[in-house]
């Protein structure tokens, strides 16, 4: 069974997923970040594939993408690093990024490499439904890769139902209509949107992301979904001069402890 499915089978609430950009802050940060996140009790990780033009991201993740590219990160290097560390990590791993680097790598080659290195799912926000079905689905399914779709507060009920049937693994609920990293207070989270999705009775598990930055926003989001995803706040924490072995447990503790 896909590790994402296993996770949602055994844990229904308060699932914590963390996003970070591969190749940031150091070219070889990925293995130690993954180990520390698992050790700290994170349930799932989204590994960002850096891209030159991250149009859905705010300044912090733009900067981490930019630095990662300067550090020489590429899909080839990312898969090499993953192949080394995967044996020691058992939580589900997702690759998240923009379509062009995947397209350039080759969709079939990418799927095979994901399978080889133990990737469980893929989130490509600029890959629309129709393009996914015609170009990617056969390869992703063969590699047992979940392809996770996004919804936003603007997404209509009927489209949420459609996405619910087409997504695999879970639905990524974008908390507000914004790029990543917009600061939000827990009380400002779109409660009516979360409740609307709850009432629709979707079959897929839901994870809330974008603007989840601390304990209070995490807890608030977890009331309405199976869990939440933290990205920008974690990237910011990594920026500090302290080693990840110290930063990461402290950061995770500040969210879940």
């Amino acid at each position, binding site marked *: 069974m896909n590790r994402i499915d296993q996770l949602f089978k055994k844990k229904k609430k308060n699932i914590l997923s963390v996003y970070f950009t591969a190749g940031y802050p150091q070219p070889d940060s990925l293995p130690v970040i993954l180990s520390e996140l698992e050790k700290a009790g994170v349930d799932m990780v989204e590994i960002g594939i850096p891209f030159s033009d991250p149009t859905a991201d705010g300044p912090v993740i733009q900067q981490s993408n930019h630095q990662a590219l300067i550090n020489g990160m590429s899909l080839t290097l990312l898969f090499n690093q993953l192949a080394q560390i995967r044996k020691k990590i058992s939580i589900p791993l997702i690759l998240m990024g923009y379509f062009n680097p995947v397209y350039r790598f080759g969709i079939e080659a990418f799927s095979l490499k994901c399978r080889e290195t133990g990737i469980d799912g893929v989130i490509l926000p600029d890959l629309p439904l129709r393009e996914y079905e015609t170009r990617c689905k056969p390869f992703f399914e063969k590699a047992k890769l979940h392809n996770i779709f996004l919804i936003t507060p603007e997404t209509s009920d009927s489209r949420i139902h459609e996405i619910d049937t087409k997504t695999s693994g879970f639905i990524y609920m*974008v908390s507000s209509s914004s790029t990543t990293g917009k600061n939000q207070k827990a009380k400002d989270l779109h409660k009516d949107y979360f409740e609307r999705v709850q009432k629709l009775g979707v079959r897929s598990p839901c994870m809330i992301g974008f603007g989840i930055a601390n304990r209070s926003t995490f807890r608030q989001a977890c009331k309405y979904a199976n869990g939440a995803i933290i990205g920008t706040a974690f990237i910011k924490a990594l920026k500090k001069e302290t080693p990840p072995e110290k930063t990461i447990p402290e950061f995770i503790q500040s969210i879940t402890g």
Partner: protein
Amino acid sequence: MTTMNYQVNEDGYYGKFGGAWIPEMMYVNIEELRVRYLDIIHSEEFESEFRQLLSDYSGRPTPLYFSHWLSEYYHTKIFLKREDLNHTGSHKLNNTIGQVLLALKLGKTRIIAETGAGQHGLATATVCALKGLECIVYMGDLDMERQETNVKKMKMLGATVIPVHTGNKTLKDATNEAMRDWINHPSDTHYIIGSVVGPHPYPDMVTRFQSVISKELKTQLAEKTGSEKPARIIACVGGGSNAAGAFYHFLDDPEVELIGVEAAGKGIYTAETAATLFVGSPGVLHSSMSIIMQNKDGQVTEPYSISAGLDYPGIGPLHAHLCKTGRAKYLYATDKEVMEAARLLTQKEGIIPALESAHALAALTQIRFKKEEVTVVNLSGRGDKDMETYLRYFGY
């Protein structure tokens, strides 16, 4: 070749190029546009206001001018389509008038735009002033420096110009920032893309608004030459909006040769170029599958051209399709060739062209003309905005 189709299909594709590679955060806005744009722009009310503004406000039809000097120099007949004589100094106003009217029909109150040379930003700020709409223009820091006069004009028109400091600080980066703005303002904002790039329906919508150029050409050529068909049409191409407009009504007539001219910068064998079709490969940038400049890892590379309006690492999907099918031919001109062509037109015809438009003029040296045939050069803009660059280059 006559059986080829050069219109966008239902899925937003020209052959293999195009589509709407958008994140879900842009879906509602793009879907609203896709569903409504054709009905709106074909409505009688829209058409009549659009036509009236083009004529009374922008000064259309723009003249078709027979250039004695160029014709003699190249031993042929060369006409200049004077898009430089539009209000605000370029063809860009055709599109911004259309999109502002469309935005009003969609009930939008806030307009955003990206700009490179500042011509699209200026055209957007102008129509927003006319219609009383809030206007925010994203412009690369480097371009703000290169095109300072346009920045000042936009500010005087009441627009907010936001400098973009990422990447090369040029057009690509300004476009990224405008897209982020739109994601963050999903309900009240319309994004006026300035070229035939971006997700469907933008390439088709902008092409339609610019197609007034080729529509006028047909009538004017018939009057002046006795035939509405020229032997060829030449236009510069960055994203490709003036070329798309100049080609549009001739696309299905294979007797008319269509030539686009890209900016080679310091040469296509150097890293400092913006000749996307010569150095690029298929990829997705700014929500459209087209030909883009990228490295082996699919990272978009930084373009270079002396002209801020052509300094873009992609090209509209229509042009990628016209290139791959052979319907249009694409050439390139280097900075040096462009400066010389601009100097000649200025001193022999008394017309100072925009750096962008001078690319089309520079490519004339690469064409074998017949004496009696008619060539149209689309002179997309005037050179006022480029005076600093010209003065520095020529040392006047």
